[in-house]
Each structure stands twice: as C-alpha cells, then as structure tokens.
C-alpha cells in the first residue's frame, strides 16, 4: 500500500514543475532507459526528466528515508519519542561546516565535504565527552549532545555575525533553510553511498532496537552488547544525517514526526516500523519537494514547508486518536 503511494508520487513528481510533462510520457521516458520504447516525446522533455528532475527526486527520496530512519532509530535507542536525528549535534556541526565554507568563499564540493566532516566531528566529540561521564551512558550521550549542539550553534552565530551581510549572510541563511534545488547527479552519487550504507545497516539490526528499548540493563541481561549496538546505531544515524544535511541543508521535522506517524500506522515494533518509516519519509519529503517546486513561482525553502505542513498534520493526528506515547 505504502509502496503504491510512493510509486504514484514518484511518477507524478516527474510530471509537475515549471515545465509540465504528461505522466504517460514520464513513464515512457523512464522505461526507455531500461527497455526500448517507441519515442513519442520531445527531446527537451527527456532532458528535463532525466537531467534535472531525476537527481532531485532521488535526492528527496534518499534524504527523506535517511532522516526518518535515523529519527526512528534514535527514538528507540534513547527510549524517547521527542528525539530527532540531530540530538547529538550532527546538524549543528554540519551547519558550521557549511557556513564556514561560505564565509571562506569555497566551492560547493568543499562545502559539502566540510558540512559532512563537521557533522561527524560534532557527534564524535559528543561521544568522547559522554564517555568521560559516569552513570547511565545513554543519558550522558543525550546531555553531551545537547551541550555540543548548543556549542556549535553559537559557532554558527559567530560565523553569521562576521559574514558579509550582502552576499554571505543570505547564502548561509538560505542554506540553513534547506533545499534540494542544486543537487546534481554527481554529488548525489557520492552522498548516496553513506546514506544507503547507513540505512541498510539500520534495517539489518532493526529488531535489536526492540531489545534495547527495554532499557540499558535489561538489554544487557538479555545478552546484548549494548555498547557495541549503541555505537553502531549512533554511527549509522550520524552518517546518514550528515550526508543528508550536506546535500540538502537542514531539514527539520521529518526525523521527528515521520517515526510517530509510522508508529500510529503499524505500532512500535521496530522490525516493521523501520521499513515503514523509510517509505513514509521518502514519500513525505518527495511530496513536500513537489510542493516546493510548484506552489509558487519562486521556490520556497523545503525546511520551511516540512514544518508548516508537518506540524499541523501531526497535531491533527495526535488529537484524532488516543496514542499516548505512540
């Protein structure tokens, strides 16, 4: 069912935009890449579909899936439904990296490398600091993450403060609001390696999240190497989130709300929940990006729309049923 919805949105996404292409032609153009199809479309249509829309649509799918599965995994790991993928500081770190490269007038490639690198460094620091804290390792990780996030946010403010207000500051601000507009096939290919890798590993170990959600000590008495498992989850979530941020900027709300909607649909069992959040996240971000491209002449930053649509929808769902923690 979810797959069908995703497929429909996927095809329609190619059709909509400043240069509309009939959905039938979209299917034919896409199929023509795999099997021979009688050519009955203009070359420009094929160019739009393959060169421009395909990378952007694939990016929306990947980023949506990544943020959603990272959110669901972190919520299970931290036994807390208010956790989002940037809880350990990855987004703040990546933002500092991106803002720094704008400040230094670096190229887009450098910016993506810096964003990814700073995101990883921020979480690495969070992890090292939390190791020094005695007591509940999960709790110290969250606390260290909140502190690290706040530290990197202040670095970001500092960079914004010293940035040239005419060119650099708007560029930073615009980047922070998130966009899939400038994704090319090349940088998507590079970013998709960590994203797909992280998603696959998380899907492989997903049932263990049920055990971990019983609590640290109980999971240990049930035979889990909790330190190892926590490490694997943190690394995977960090890598997929950092890769998402470096090609799309900071997109809030997807990682927080999609896991909740998933739990409302299929319950909290991570074995089912994680694949469902992947599909939901992909569909949701693709749908939002379609709106971004079509609603107004100028593109609205995607980070704004994910919240404007997501938050009221989530509140509506909360009101509709008695879900408690689900």
């Amino acid at each position, binding site marked *: 069912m979810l797959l069908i919805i995703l497929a429909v949105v996927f095809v329609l996404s190619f059709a909509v935009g400043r240069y509309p292409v009939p959905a039938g032609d979209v299917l034919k153009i896409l199929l023509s890449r795999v099997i021979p199809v009688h050519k009955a479309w203009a070359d420009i249509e094929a160019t739009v579909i393959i060169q421009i829309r395909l990378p952007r649509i694939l990016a929306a799918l990947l980023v949506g899936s990544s943020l959603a599965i990272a959110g669901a995994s972190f919520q299970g790991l931290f036994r*807390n439904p208010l956790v989002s993928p940037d809880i350990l500081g990855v987004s703040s770190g990546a933002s500092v990296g991106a803002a720094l490269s704008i400040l230094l007038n670096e190229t887009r490639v450098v910016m993506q490398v810096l964003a990814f690198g700073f995101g990883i460094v921020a979480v690495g620091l969070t992890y090292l600091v939390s190791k020094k804290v005695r007591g509940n390792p999960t709790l110290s990780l969250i606390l260290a993450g909140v502190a690290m996030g706040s530290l990197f946010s202040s670095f970001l403010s500092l960079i914004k403060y010293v940035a040239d207000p005419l060119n650099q500051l708007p560029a930073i601000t615009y980047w922070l609001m998130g966009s899939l507009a400038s994704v090319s096939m090349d940088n998507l290919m590079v970013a998709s390696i960590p994203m797909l890798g992280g998603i696959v590993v998380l899907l492989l170990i997903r049932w263990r999240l*049920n055990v971990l959600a*019983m*609590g640290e000590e109980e999971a*240990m008495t049930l*035979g889990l190497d909790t330190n190892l*498992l926590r490490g694997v989850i943190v690394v995977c979530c960090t890598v997929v989130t950092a890769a998402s941020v470096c090609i799309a900027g900071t997109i809030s709300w997807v990682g927080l709300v999609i896991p909740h909607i998933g739990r409302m649909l299929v*319950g909290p*069992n991570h074995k089912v929940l994680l694949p469902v959040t992947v599909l939901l996240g992909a569909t949701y971000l693709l749908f939002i990006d379609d709106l971004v491209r079509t609603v107004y002449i100028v593109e609205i930053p995607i980070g704004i729309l994910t919240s404007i649509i997501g938050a009221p929808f989530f509140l509506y769902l909360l009101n509709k049923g008695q879900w408690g923690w689900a």
Partner: protein
Amino acid sequence: MLSVKDASFFYDRARRSGFGGLDFDLKPGEVLCILGPNGCGKTTLLKCLVGLLKVEGGRISLNGREVSQMGRRDLAKVIGYVPQLHIPAFPFSVLDAVLVGRAPHLNMLESPGKEDEEVADTALRAMGIEALRDRPYTQLSGGEIQLVLFARVLAQQPALLLLDEPTSHLDFGNQIRTLHLIQELSSTGLPIVMTSHFPDHAFLASSKVAIMKDNRFLAVGTPEEVITVENMERIYGIKVSIVDVDGPAGRRICVPMRGGDGAGPDRHALWERLANVG
C-alpha cells in the same frame, strides 16, 4: 548448580556500599530468598550474579563455568533476570515484549522466526496470559505486566532464574500468586534466587533463606532456622512474632507486633503541634 565463594563487590573505596565475603550454593529446584534492609546489597548481589557487575573478589560459578569469564550472550542463555521495576518506553504488544527474551539465542542480524514465536507462545500459555498476546503491554495492570516479564524470562529458557523483589509493586493477591508461581517453577528443577522485603514470603515460597545486613550474610539456612525473632530484630530493628498456625493455612508465619518503637514524649509533642490537635 550455582556456587558462590567469598564473593565481594563494593561501589566505593570505603567499602560501605556493596557486599563482601558471601558464600552459598544453590541446587536444582531450590529457591533462595535473600532478606535484608534497604541498601544492604541485595540488588548488587543479583547484578553480580547476572553479570551486570563483576565481582572484585571470590568467584561465582554456574554449572562449573565462572560467570565473570562468560560473554554477555552466553550468560543470557543460562541466566534469566527479572528486574525490580520495568519501565515501558513503547507500547509493544505482549508478544513482541516476550519475543525480546529470544535475543540471546539470535545473532546480531537475526530477528525472531517461527520457532522463536512458538517458544514465546508457549511461555505465554505457561503464564496463562495467551489471551493478552496482541494487547499493548503498557495497558496492562501491574500484575499482568509482571506475568509478561515472567513469560519473557521463560522464553529466554534459562538454567537459573534471578528475581529482584518480584512482589514489591503488586497487590496482596498478585503477591501471593507470584509466590505460588515461583514455587511451582522451582518444582520443575529450575533454581531461583529472589530478594524480598517480607520475611513471611520466605516461608511461603523458599527452601533456603539468607539474611543480609551491613554488606554480609548474617545467616544462611532453611527458613525455619534463619527466620527467628532474634534475627528479625537484628536486621530490621523491629519486634516480630513467629508462630505455627493451625487450620487450613497450617504453616509458620512471621508477623510484626503492634506498637511503635517509642519515639518519646518530646517527638509526640512535636507531632501534636504540627497536627494542630484541639
């Protein structure tokens, strides 16, 4: 068989919090009930037995293998542990919560298959809660959650069962039902170590009692040998009466006496002032 020799563990250098010099054995089918005041080291001992903490001195071995030498997964295959209080984070179905007990029998990338589900279903039937199978376990009563935790630990198929205050959060009926359950489980040959705050529960469910105070065992033996008026006053500082009752109950009981421990007239005056009597 569980064998504990001169085991010790302390959280602090001053050796105030923890336990030391413990010796005991447990044979198949025996139930050891550990009694002692708050903070005497009961839970710490259970955590060492299940391998959450490693003993500093002495040794704990189960069926000839030393617990501190065993990996986490090997431990979980043979030792089942029911914590004092389970705090649910997500409303898992009862079946999913019980299936978690199969974790030690699965490797990192596996998830429970048909056989594991059969074991979980058997555990649910063994606890008489198969009707709750698909309910969210967060919506159950305290007594039912306890049964889910028991089903989970049975699905683990352990050779030793550790229960940390299994009756603490239950009403009177569920306390006694839990004790009966413990007794019946042990009659299948499963050795059980439990902690409790109720000496009378030791009469009801255990074959062996250890009383613990100031980080050591004061006495280990049968309930009749160990639960005496003197010992209860030594560990709890209150007066109890221990009598054999006739009638349908027909057993030895341990009951507290009426009356306070003498707060003195000064404190009574303070109470009256605070209560604004008259």
